[in-house]
């Protein structure tokens, strides 16, 4: 039985604003999972707090909506305990690059086998429009009334510096392309970042669908660009102006994931191993350590 997009349909109607970029992400994700023939129970979506982080409620799949900024450690714990699950993190730019920034760095260093989808609307949506880590300089919000004065986070550059093994950027307005990127990310063994440009039609009146459409181009279509060159990726990471690249910036394959390197997991996932009383020999060995 092949799985289909509709298998991932939730009974809950999204509360997102009409036109919100999150619809595109939701649909692309369903499509990617269906294309890979995954079923809802094989997937665990972990999210945080924010508009985008409500996604797991709007999709049929195992879901855990945690607290703001802590998506990656929760996802990591779940993956380490049951590495047979496809664990997909999905959260906003504030959640992922802001309050959760350190977990982001650490998860990349570990090469945890997770997909990390960032709903990057360059603003705090759910709290009604404050500037976010990816807001551009000068972006006026309620907490930056004279315009943001911090350099915007560059997730691609950071990911390169931190050793991520799969680094991509998608656009919520380009469903097939995004679905394709997500499928690649899910298939990648190791940490996979998919930063998704996600228009917020309410609080970000600068980086709109049109604004992006006028600037975006696909790396796949860029003459001579391949995702295996760290230096080239580093250069592309800073391209954010008249032209903005989407697609796969960088990928290294074949590196061991964190889970691969844990001896206790070689015999199967922790959850599969189940629980059993210690054998008398084990008990004796434990006691003997202290005799």
């Amino acid at each position: 039985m092949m799985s289909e997009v509709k298998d991932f349909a939730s009974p809950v109607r999204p509360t997102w604003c009409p036109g919100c970029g999150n619809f595109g992400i939701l649909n692309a994700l369903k499509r990617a999972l269906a294309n890979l023939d995954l079923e809802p129970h094989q997937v665990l979506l972990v999210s945080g707090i924010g508009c985008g982080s409500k996604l797991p409620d709007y999709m049929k799949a195992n879901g855990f909506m945690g607290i703001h900024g802590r998506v990656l450690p929760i996802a990591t714990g779940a993956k380490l305990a049951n590495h047979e699950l496809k664990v997909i993190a999905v959260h906003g730019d504030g959640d992922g690059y802001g309050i959760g920034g350190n977990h982001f760095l650490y998860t990349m260093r570990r090469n945890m086998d997770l997909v990390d989808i960032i709903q990057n609307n360059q603003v705090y949506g759910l709290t009604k429009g404050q500037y976010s880590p990816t807001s551009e300089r000068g972006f006026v919000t309620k907490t930056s009334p004279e315009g943001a004065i911090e350099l915007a986070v560059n997730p691609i550059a950071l990911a390169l510096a931190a050793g991520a093994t799969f680094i991509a950027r998608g656009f919520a307005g380009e469903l097939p392309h995004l679905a394709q990127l997500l499928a690649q990310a899910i298939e990648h063994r190791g940490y996979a970042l998919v930063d998704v440009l996600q228009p917020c039609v309410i609080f970000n009146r600068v980086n709109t669908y049109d604004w992006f459409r006028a600037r975006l181009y696909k790396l796949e279509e860029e003459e001579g660009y391949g995702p295996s060159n760290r230096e080239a990726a580093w250069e592309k990471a800073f391209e954010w102006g008249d032209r903005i690249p989407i697609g796969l910036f960088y990928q290294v394959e074949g590196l061991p994931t964190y889970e691969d390197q844990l001896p206790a997991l070689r015999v199967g996932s922790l959850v599969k191993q189940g629980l059993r009383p210690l054998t008398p020999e084990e008990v004796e060995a434990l006691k003997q350590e202290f005799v």
Partner: protein
Amino acid sequence: MIKNDMTFKIGGEAGQGVESSGAGFAQALARGGLHIFGLQDYMSRIRGGHNFYQIRVKEEDIYSHTDAVHLLLALNPQAIKEHIEEVVEGGGIIYDESWQGEKRELEGRGIVPFPAPLKRIAEEEGGRKVMMNTAALGVAAGLTGYDFEPMASVIEDNFRKKGASVVERNLKVAETGYRFAQENYHRFDYRLEAIEVPERMVINGNHAFCLGAVASGCRFVSAYPMTPATSIMEWMATHAQRYGMVMKHTEDEIAAICMAIGAAHVGARAMTATSGGGFSLMVEALGLAGMTETPLVVVEAQRPGPSTGLATRTEQGDLRFILHASQGEFPRLILAPGTVEECFQAGARAFNLAEKYQCPVIVVLDNFLANSLRAVDKEAFDFASVEIDRGELLTSEDLDRLESRYNRFQFTESGISPRAVSSHPKAVYVSTGNVHDEEGHITEEPTIRTKMMNKKMRKLEVARREMREPELYGPKEADITLLGWGSTYGPIREAVKALNKEGRKVNFIHFMDIWPLHWEEVAEMMERAKQTVAVENNYSGQMADLIRTYTGREVDKRILRYDGRPFSPDYIIAHLEVQ
């Protein structure tokens, strides 16, 4: 001549191996069939300063150190200055022969000086000055007439990893010290003699907890180092592979608790361990576990606060904090073991309780309990009776048979909703820290909120039934009833014992389970007591306040200590007298 009843104290600076040799000596005594209590005291620095290790030894089971020192092993001159007052008349001090001017002062106080060529033995026989500690132990064993055999076996075990030459040199140092004492010293009142008993374990609270946890199937530990909890994650790290566990040293305590939540959510028995500062960082996620009904075990090994406080010392200052940590209200269970046996049991019980009631279980330790060594019979840790009870956890087979929609947060009378862990096609659901309905979806409906809150809180009522009532130690009828919780068990028990021996009528109520409790029972116990005295290692008497909150009864007196040092029976007795 006093046999098998004395206290050693080893003093020196960090880097001189005070702790390792103290612990080793304690083990050697236990291997000779003696009971020991080992108290560790060290400063928050890696080298220098002043540390000590105190070993009380006796033929009967003991639960605490006492203040009087009978033999001081001074690894540097400062150790004599620091501890001379504690040495009893007739006691002795072992020190390096090169130090001048000690002898007269000691004799003036009736203390026997035992100068010995510690440094020379260490350097000549061992090749390293740091082996002075081994030399001093050798001297101490020789002086007290203790068998050399158990000591040799401990040296062999402890240094094996460092190679045969290190073992051999240490053995030579110890032996030379031992012989030196036997040949040179003749008058000392305290003697030790090995006796025949079954094997004993020498273990501290942290490790006892670890054994219980492993026995009950702990599978996942994520933690960030923090004194005095660190030895839990370190022990788990070295045992992870063999016992099918993952131990993850995380980027911080927030990640530590969150990883444990993630692991627990998908079905692994998961825990984290920290001290107050790290627990502070876990507070937000603790509430998440409460809201998502995730079974989670958290060890909070207290040290003196606020803030960094005294990093390597002891206090019981976090009880109220632990009880109320995180915004809002949700069920949590709190265990506060008082002995290594109770630590083992707490390790074994915590995961069952967490899974049965689907909520966080917090095990409260402190530096004193976490690090003090006690000798116990091997049977004292009853692994065979450890049952793994996962509560209402639906198996794959249960789920295969499921006819209706699966409601992860079903309203039930017990408040416990049968749990399925993510990965079964018939139990695909969402969990959230938002208010949610029975299925798990986010809702803002006031009636559902109220019902869900009531459902969750009902679990406390069910759990209450299996929580351990406070335990009475000592005579049923007494003039004074001491009240304590957690780690003070040992010192209070010993104080009570001593007082009753003197003809006083004193007993003691020990709280090892803190939350939830049958408060009516506590109220009755308080009612029966004549004068009640809370003994707590904190500033305000937090347990006394708790008792007042839930029974209305005010404790008559509080003996409080908050200088970072543990109670001793002597301290308690002294403070009981001054009214």
